[in-house]
């Protein structure tokens, strides 16, 4: 009945996967090997991916995950 509520479009799903795998999960600071120059995550006009790249850049700059989250303005749990 509510099948249309769950998104099955490829683009949206792809973005959601990439947002999670790049921006979330357990982080081993200092062991991330991603270089922004090497990554070909090209999504025109999509803020989510831009934020992922920014996060990676900040981590590469030596900021701790907590500092990166503070800069990203994460909201508290409710």
């Amino acid at each position: 009945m509510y099948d249309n509520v769950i998104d099955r479009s490829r683009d949206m799903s792809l973005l959601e996967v990439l947002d999670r795998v790049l921006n979330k999960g357990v982080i081993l600071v200092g062991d991330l090997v991603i270089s922004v120059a090497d990554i070909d995550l090209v999504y025109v006009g999509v803020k989510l991916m831009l934020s992922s790249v920014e996060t990676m850049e900040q981590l590469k700059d030596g900021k701790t995950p907590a500092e990166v989250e503070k800069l990203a303005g994460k909201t508290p749990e409710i």
Partner: protein
Amino acid sequence: MDKLIYAILLNKSKTDNLQQTLSGIEGIDKSALNAISFGTISAVCGNFNKSDFAANQAVALAFAGVIDEVAKHFTLLPMRFGSFMKTSEDVSKMLEKNHDGFLQNLEKVENKFEFGLKVFGDSTKIQEHLKATNPIEEKVVDENEASKFKSYVNKKLRAHRIEERLLSFVDTIVAEITLYLKQMEATSRIQKMASESILVDGVFLIKKNQQQQLVEAIGDLQKQYPEIKFVLTGPWPPYSFVEIKLK
């Protein structure tokens, strides 16, 4: 060979089955996965030369695919893409040092799914709609006393009231979503006005058997607010609910 870590999992009841289950799942380069364990916690790893690791979209998706596959069998905490350690001993030490933190996080997400919800809407159109359905009273100003300054202030005040109405509209939607989530005892994080078109951006952690209940709740909201678009994604492994600082 370096150790590429995909996930940390809880292995309290299936110790004997872990390696057997992992043998049926391929890593990002089709190589075998292996488990490095400490107590009831295990790291799912693959052997990989760090220098050969291509950080591109296809590999990131494959990495997520492996985590998804392992999550079908175990409660886990996903590792962020590109997490390497040099040796099995390093992984083992990392598990030992962080055992309690991992265990607490794993117990929190046990038998639960993550869902994402984005509510899309054109904020300008919604503001116009709100303005049309409930007009803001214009203050009648005597032309003689209407200075440029007063006109400017009135214009700003009016824009502010329209903005307030949009925020109040978003607050109402968030309150309704939160009400449903409270009934499900879900953990959630909700951001309002994530962008001009994303009115609400939320992630929820719900019990696995509540999936249909959540879908129906969001479906009801979609019916109630046809002018905006509710997009639910999931179920996901609990990417957004990992709260651990590794030692």
